[in-house]
């Protein structure tokens, strides 16, 4: 059996991050490429409430 060369760090006394308390992602540190204007324009025309209206049954 091979044991992985694990890199483990000791747990800090306070977790660095808890579920839900982060401010969310920031944009990737990139300048290029950019989304084509046509695609951005299309996105602007999408009903902003469509996810609110989207209801489904649970599946597997």
């Amino acid at each position: 059996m091979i044991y992985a060369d694990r890199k483990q760090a000791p747990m800090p006394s306070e977790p660095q991050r808890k579920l839900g308390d982060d401010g969310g992602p920031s944009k990737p540190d990139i300048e290029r490429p950019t989304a084509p204007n046509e695609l951005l324009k299309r996105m602007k025309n999408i009903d902003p409430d469509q996810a609110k209206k989207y209801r489904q049954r649970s599946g597997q």
Partner: protein
Amino acid sequence: MSSSFTPDKQTRSILAGIDTEYGFTIEGRDVTNQADDSMAFVRHSPDEGLLMWDYQSENPRRDMRGFQVNHLTFDAQDAEFDGGRSRPPAAEERSDRALPNGARFYNDHGHPEYATPESWSLADLVAHEQLGDQVVLNAARALSQKLNREVQVYKNNTDFHGASWGTHESYLTPRKHEFNDLARAIIPMLIARQVLTGAGKVGSESKGPVKFQITQRADFFVEPMNVETLSRRPVFNTRDEPHADSSKWRRLHVISGDSNMHPGCTRRKVGLVKLALILLDQDRVPQWEIPDPVTSFQLVSRDAVGEGRVELEARSWTTPRQILESYCDAADHAEIADPEILELLSETRTLLEARHSNPDNFWPHVDWAAKLWLLNQFADSEGQWEQSAMQALDLQYHLLDREDGLYYGLSSAGLLCGNDVHPSAHGLPPNGSRAVARAAFIQNFPEQIETLSWGQIRLKSGESITLDPSLWYEQGLLDVESIEELTRRLSQ
């Protein structure tokens, strides 16, 4: 069909399949109609297929840990929707279609579901998974025409209101492996692989708010392992339903993956689990003790910016990257003949390195990162990230419509990488798998089939043919002109 980049009879590794449940909407209808609408959806499929499937050998209540549950838990909200609805007989409700490529299309719990034929190669599997999108779209268009209402199909796993449906993977696995060894090989991989395979989601449906997370499904896992799929979903599903000789085989049933729009993610998602199974077979699985797989899965999903965090025993922790690299390192000492898995190892290392050091070389390969990149571009142009509008765009990413779906917008703009699809699926079953035999009967002798399932074909003559999943089935079976000859060849 096979090339130096796909496995052949000698180099094949693990047989696998994917079944995908699709979300859909019909203009003027709502979720309370969905159980009936999904049945109508499948029944309007214009694609050729046999209207049958044999459930006799199927038992989803058997658990790999050696017992059987009395019943499976159903979703309480769905039960409310169904109040007063009289259900048709099971076969009528399922409305099965056995397709000429060896796939199956049916209604499952109110969702149209397409199950690929079993495939030895990742390229074939991805091609047939993509073919499923087309089968579903064809049915949607036919239903739309019939009803004169708009029908939209979404290849995602959540409605943002707490309902989830699945994209499941199946892997043929020898029964000889102990259950605990199998679970220890697979659970770390399921937690870690999401950084390279998640479909991405705006927001959360449990555990507190988050702006964006890596997977669609993380919110819905509440137990480390169990046999359930509709409720109390686990990270590691223990369903023991091999669709083959149960004394020799298990079917590893993975329910924690997302539906991927990006074919490269689908390929990688299955390839990484195959890698874990190959290492298990050679007793080379990296040893990770993850005491709380549910929390670890969710912590990784909620860290779209950092490396992610997987908590281990004794107050230590690691990252998804270190887990994935440990599997790649272990593979360096294993005997791997499958050329697709060798290619996957290289790709995995490259993407893990690129994720933070060179994001431009990462996001075009990975659904969640491509979605997040696009949403950030939009937020920049609007001057704000407005959560409900971003959820609307998230949903639009998964719309199966080449004109309006945002995934297709990225793809047609040439912004994505690694999303080419092997063009083999049209008309042909996956190379070498037992689906070739199934397809040979469906394509050439449909009127002589009494019924069929994954592992067996029963003929009207009374003969029954069992399809051993471990064998290699030559494509020449599709050209056999008499049923006697076909049956004889499969009996050898």
